[in-house]
């Protein structure tokens, strides 16, 4: 019997195919472009400056609200207090402006509140063995209740005109002929992606979501990472609340309610795994654009709101099935 071994010691690997397999999971980033083409063909009227600007404004508001949700999910948690914080900020900006408080002071107050909310979420979910789902649901209820109590149920007030302009499709930002909210989203998205991909915090966030046990052995501080994540989540939710006040022209404590479902949809459609450790804000940007485009498409086709929900649900299920397959392939060894 021969003991002579084949001379190859390395597995034969086709490098071209490897690079193709790296492209496949990233095809999702092309989806909004494809969707835009579909819209352009089906509903050409959207392809006007106002039409595109309107689409981007709606996407920008949802996009800013979804930063925190994405990260909460990346760390293996979820943030159900986003609607409550949106309502808090919306009412606070209207009420306090009516009482003569300056906008800067309002933002400072909202930032302080966000830090408090973030610390409560981060510390409670790390110290107690309770899932953030329960904790954020509870704090959300407390926040909404407190807002209504503090405002005595009267949530009206005065909304500064520049906020209304920031979210108006016909407004421009200084010399730039684009509403401020779209520019804000671009900046937020850039910073968010930088933060998650190029900082120690970002890496620790992924590590915590991928394997909390290993994270603590690797000297990641779970409470600190979670506190930062939920603080930023609250801060972005508060920003959304302020923008929504301008967008709707009315302050209301439950103005954020649709954002529970919408932020989760955007995150899931983008392909961030609810198991944690996978995905990121870049994908959520895609999810935000897709869901916003899809809603516009359905309204364009005159689909009733009940059926819109059905279609959106179907899209989510189909995508989850696709991503599920994708992941099985990714974890093949």
């Amino acid at each position, binding site marked *: *019997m*021969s*003991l002579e*071994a*084949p001379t*190859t*010691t*390395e*597995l*034969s*690997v*086709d490098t071209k*195919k*490897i690079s*193709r*397999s790296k492209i496949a999971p990233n095809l999702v980033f092309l989806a909004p472009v494809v969707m835009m083409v579909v819209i352009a063909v089906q509903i050409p009227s959207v392809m006007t400056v106002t039409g595109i600007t309107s689409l981007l404004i709606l996407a920008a508001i949802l996009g800013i609200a979804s930063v925190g949700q994405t990260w909460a999910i990346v760390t293996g948690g979820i943030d159900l207090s986003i609607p409550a914080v949106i309502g808090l900020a919306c009412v606070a900006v209207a009420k306090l402006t009516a009482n003569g408080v300056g906008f800067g002071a309002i933002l400072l107050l909202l930032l302080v509140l966000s830090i408090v909310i973030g610390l409560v979420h981060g510390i409670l979910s790390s110290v107690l063995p309770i899932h953030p789902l329960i904790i954020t649901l509870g704090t959300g209820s407390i926040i909404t209740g407190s807002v209504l109590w503090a405002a005595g149920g009267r949530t009206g007030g005065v909304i500064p005109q520049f906020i209304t302009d920031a979210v108006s499709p016909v407004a421009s930002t200084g010399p730039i002929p684009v509403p401020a909210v779209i520019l804000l989203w671009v900046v937020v998205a850039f910073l968010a992606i*930088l933060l998650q991909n*190029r*900082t*120690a*915090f970002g*890496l*620790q966030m*992924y*590590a915590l979501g*991928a*394997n909390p*046990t*290993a*994270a603590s*052995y*690797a*000297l*990641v501080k779970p409470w600190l990472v979670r506190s930062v994540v939920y603080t930023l989540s609250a801060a972005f939710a508060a920003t959304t609340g302020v923008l929504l006040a301008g967008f709707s022209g009315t302050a209301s404590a439950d103005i954020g309610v649709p954002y529970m479902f919408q932020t989760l949809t955007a995150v899931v459609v983008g392909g961030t795994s609810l198991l944690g*450790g*996978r995905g990121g804000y870049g994908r959520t940007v895609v999810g935000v654009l897709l869901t916003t485009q899809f809603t516009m498409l359905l309204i364009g086709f005159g689909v009733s709101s009940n059926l819109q929900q059905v279609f959106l649900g179907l899209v989510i299920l189909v995508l989850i099935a696709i991503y599920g397959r994708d992941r099985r*392939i*990714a*974890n*093949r*060894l």
Partner: protein
Amino acid sequence: MKDEMRMSETKRDDYLVSLLVEAHRYGNTLAIQQCSIEILPGEVHGLVGENGSGKSTIVKLLSGIIKPTSGSLMVSGEELVFANPSDAQRHGINTVFQETLISDGNTAVENVFLGVDGLFKRAKKDSVEREKAIEFAERLGYDASLFRRPLHTMSVADRQVLTLIRSLARPWKLLILDEATSALDIQTRDRLFDIIKEYKHEGRSVLFVSHRMDELEILIDRATVQRSGRLIGVVDKAEATPERLISMMSGDLHSSNYVHQHAQQTEGVVPETKVSLRDVVLVPGAAAFDLDVRSGEILGIAGLEGQGGSSLAETIAGVRLPASGQVALVAAPGGEDRSIRSQRHAFKHGIAYVPAKRQEEGLFAPLSVAQNFIISTIESISMLGFFRKKKLEAATWVYMDKLSVRPRDTAVPVSQLSGGNAQKVLIGRWLNAKPSVIVLNDPLRGVDVGTKRQFYRLITDLAAEGVSVVMLSTEIEELLLISDRIAVCRQSSVARVLEGEARTQQEILSAMFGVLEMAADQPEGDFA
């Protein structure tokens, strides 16, 4: 090739299982090609090869987890394609994997029969299940109390025993043990071998996948050797000496000379104490002991599973605090010793800890090799919290090269690396912190021989540079090979510290089992 001729001598029908694989791909990666494995009825067949040689692929093909890209499988002369693992089980092929697949949500008995029961209906009544499980538990040296213990409190060894019982208790013609003995203590392993021998006489077959040459030598009738995804050869019992197998696996005929005697290296250097343990009690009620960790030495930790070895390693690194006594960082002369308060505190003072179960406690499966590597030392390449990708790559490649991590790609998810390569990434993570003491908790479990050899060199080199290495291992030969001193744990305490001439297998075993005098002529395999 002669192998092919050999195949033609025996008809395929005569084999219990005959698997011929042209090629099998995972996505675009070719895992194995031109491989075959043929198992006779009533034989224990070894499957050996380094990590990445394609052993796991063969096992997965045989147990119905994957289907070959091209190739054929015959079981008792019948051409089959397994649709799923239960299909393989219906055809009498049961597999015990190295990863102990126990779901914590179920009771121990349910775990034994996981997959046999219907979704809503149990196949057999509880009491029948229980009796059968208890029978095997007793034969493996356990008793009924195993099934009453909450699963989350069970050690790796206990969990492995449960998976063994799970497979043994179901009808089978071929039992595949895929590194299933690496977590077992010697007694249990030997009992398992007795059971296997008994079944062998009944005409049942076992496919035995192991890195442990001693086990292979004791147990197998024939062995299939693979390297780099290809079949190298099939050898009979007479040919299957450790030296021969290792040379076939590694392609290096002189591989038996890799032994690196470290002990001589530190001669002449005065070792200074880095960490001192004084009157340390690991768990309430255990005996107190003293122990020093010295610079430039390799301190081995030996002991049966659950006898405090792992706790000792964790205590030295600050992961856990002792019930009483002091674990202190020894300061330079003139300074003051300081108690270790936590793993973080220990790390700040140069003590790194590499946890035991690399999948559960070490690695972040979806994250890239580079991310897994840098996670604990990210500050070293950061400016104001931000880091440059270039710096991350550079820092990672230093260790990719030093530890020869395969594949040569820092962007792949670490989950796609073999066990040995993943372990390299994990150790690299902590080496990058340039620790003065590194505590390795069972780092080489399930790692192939070639990689082990690299690790031995790495560890002895580290010691030569003055780093204190504390390493727990379940393999005595390994400890004998590289340690300067060996702390033997028993009943959650350090029973003996062996050094110099006292470091013999018998001394270690006697300390592990609490036997002071051992008969010199007792053969090692029958110990227990």
